[in-house]
């Protein structure tokens, strides 16, 4: 971490020159670079300085690649401006589930400590090609299993709006880093809500694209039929631009199909003629009343913009959580069989034979929640239980898909709160796995059906962010982002968390 002091000094000078990263969107970064007002190195140094200033309080990063980021920024500055692509020199941070060639990628697990991928994930290669600057790797729940980022083997990330609370998860580092202005935007991954729920809890925009819109090559696999990579950003326009950068068919992921049309720049100003279905099952009795109050104000804003809102009952969604906790652990137990101490990562020392090496490596390398899910999945797939659990869950999935398809025959979009509650206290749900699993109640059915879902900052309850979830039909990202943009302009919610003030208050206690 040497050199951070030097860059901090540099950024102080920059701040005096008016470069306050807490005010910057990715589009603003792009404009500053295009006009020549700042260089890529100056911009990168400003973010590194911000990280140095607030990371002690937030703990979003597992690795800050200062040298790599500055070298990449220098290479951008060395190119004539007219030869650069539009996003060249704009910094970004990546969830530590994405492989970056030559940079340690751990998935926040001891079993992958020290793993240095020999290749880039496809999304990383695309961003590299576009000239983005990688600031570092972000904390997460181990192997993306969790809803609070407390399952990281390495550190606990704190919510930038209240340092005693969780940022959500599993992409908690991604959401916290954007809320704390440590990067203009970030990539996360979403298997049951892992982009949208932390985006909601940290008050930023998070989008899970349609299954297949983005290549999963180089994303460490959790549940392959549900996983999808997506953007976390301060604004809908930034999220749209980042989606455009990463989406596309990839021969290396046979489930990827890309998007049918370019996302473009969201610019819709009203919602006239659009019908929104409010999912009844995610209302009273499921969500905190304060969350529902904020949600109600978002509904009023949608109606004020000319959108039509009415309640719709989707009873099969109530089975989503149970189906998910069969399907996701089953796929995980199979995917995580590859961690055996042979080809990469941790190997337990001093083992006498191969079986002992497998068992000790896995038992010492995986954390409690990962083991719990491997056990559930192995149980559900084991002889005699397959039909009762796995096949039944996949049939339930069919019912959920049908119910969404019917609803989209009547509505353009479906809406609900993203998370039933605001950010909870660190430690509050650790002892009760089922309580933790309920954090993803409203987001899970969207993954089961492979739909795009977006969490938009809707306001605050008890000073903590509340997210509005907007769900669209398959491959409707362009329309979804345009609708979200109109709502975002109407709500005008603050997205920059007051981390420095909170950290100072904490220091004075």
């Amino acid at each position, binding site marked *: 971490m040497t050199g951070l002091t030097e860059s901090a000094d540099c950024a102080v000078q920059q701040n005096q020159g008016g470069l306050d990263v807490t005010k910057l969107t990715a589009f603003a970064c792009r404009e500053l670079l295009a006009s020549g007002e700042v260089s890529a190195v100056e911009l990168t140094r400003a973010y590194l300085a911000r990280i140095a200033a607030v990371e002690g309080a937030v703990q979003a990063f597992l690795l800050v690649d200062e040298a790599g980021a500055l070298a990449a920024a220098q290479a951008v500055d060395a190119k004539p401006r007219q030869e650069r692509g539009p996003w060249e020199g704009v910094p970004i941070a990546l969830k530590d589930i994405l492989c970056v060639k030559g940079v340690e990628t751990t998935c926040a697990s001891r079993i992958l400590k020290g793993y240095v991928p020999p290749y880039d994930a496809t999304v990383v290669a695309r961003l590299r090609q576009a000239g983005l600057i990688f600031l570092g790797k972000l904390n997460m729940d181990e192997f993306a299993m969790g809803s609070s980022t407390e399952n990281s083997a390495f550190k606990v990330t704190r919510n930038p709006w209240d340092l005693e609370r969780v940022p959500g998860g599993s992409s908690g580092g991604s959401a916290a880093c954007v809320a704390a202005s440590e990067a203009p935007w970030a990539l996360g991954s979403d298997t049951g809500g892992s982009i949208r729920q932390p985006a909601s809890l940290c008050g930023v925009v998070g989008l899970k694209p349609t299954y297949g819109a983005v290549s999963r090559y180089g994303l460490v696999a959790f549940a392959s039929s549900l996983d999808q990579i997506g953007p976390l950003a301060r604004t809908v326009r930034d999220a749209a631009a980042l989606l455009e950068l990463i989406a596309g068919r990839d021969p290396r992921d046979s489930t990827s199909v890309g998007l049918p049309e370019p996302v473009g720049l969201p610019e819709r100003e009203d919602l006239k003629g659009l019908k929104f279905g409010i999912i009844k099952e995610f209302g009273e009795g499921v969500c905190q009343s304060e969350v529902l109050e904020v949600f109600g104000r978002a509904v009023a804003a949608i109606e004020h913009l000319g959108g039509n809102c009415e309640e719709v009952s989707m009873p099969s969604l109530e089975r989503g959580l149970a189906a998910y906790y069969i399907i996701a652990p089953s796929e995980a*137990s199979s995917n995580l069989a590859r961690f055996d101490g042979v080809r990469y990562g941790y190997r337990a020392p001093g083992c006498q034979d191969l079986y002992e090496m497998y068992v000790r490596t896995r038992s010492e390398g995986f954390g409690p929640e990962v083991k719990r899910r491997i056990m559930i999945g192995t149980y559900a797939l084991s002889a005699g239980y397959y039909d009762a659990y796995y096949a039944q869950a996949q049939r339930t999935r069919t019912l959920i898909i049908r119910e969404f398809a019917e609803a989209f025959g009547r509505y353009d979009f479906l809406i609900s709160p993203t998370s039933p509650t605001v950010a909870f206290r660190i430690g509050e749900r650790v002892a009760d796995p089922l309580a933790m699993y309920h954090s993803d109640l409203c987001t899970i059915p969207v993954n089961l059906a*492979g739909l795009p879902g977006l969490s938009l900052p809707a306001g605050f309850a008890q000073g903590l962010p509340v997210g509005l979830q907007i769900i669209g039909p398959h491959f409707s990202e362009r329309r979804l982002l345009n609708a979200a943009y109109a709502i975002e302009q109407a709500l005008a919610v603050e997205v920059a968390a007051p981390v420095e003030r909170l950290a100072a208050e904490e220091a004075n206690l």
Partner: protein
Amino acid sequence: MISREEVEHVARLARLTFSEEELVRLQQELGKIIGYINQLSQLDLSGVEPTFHAVRLINVLRPDEPQPGLTQQEATANGPVVEAGQFVVPRIG
């Protein structure tokens, strides 16, 4: 909901081992989780086709052209024990 023997059997299948204390807690936790997911086994879903992928794709092909892959050195660089370009493991039991 799940017996001690079943937990131990599943652990063997999953190539995991647990301390006595962990086993007691796990049996309890898995019992609760399985109790919750058990609600599905009571549903009559006969005649409903299972979904394995939400976005159905059939026969995705790419041109069958040779591409350079990782070198042996790159492929083995992360191996805990590597000798002569190969992964070394303890003897099979």
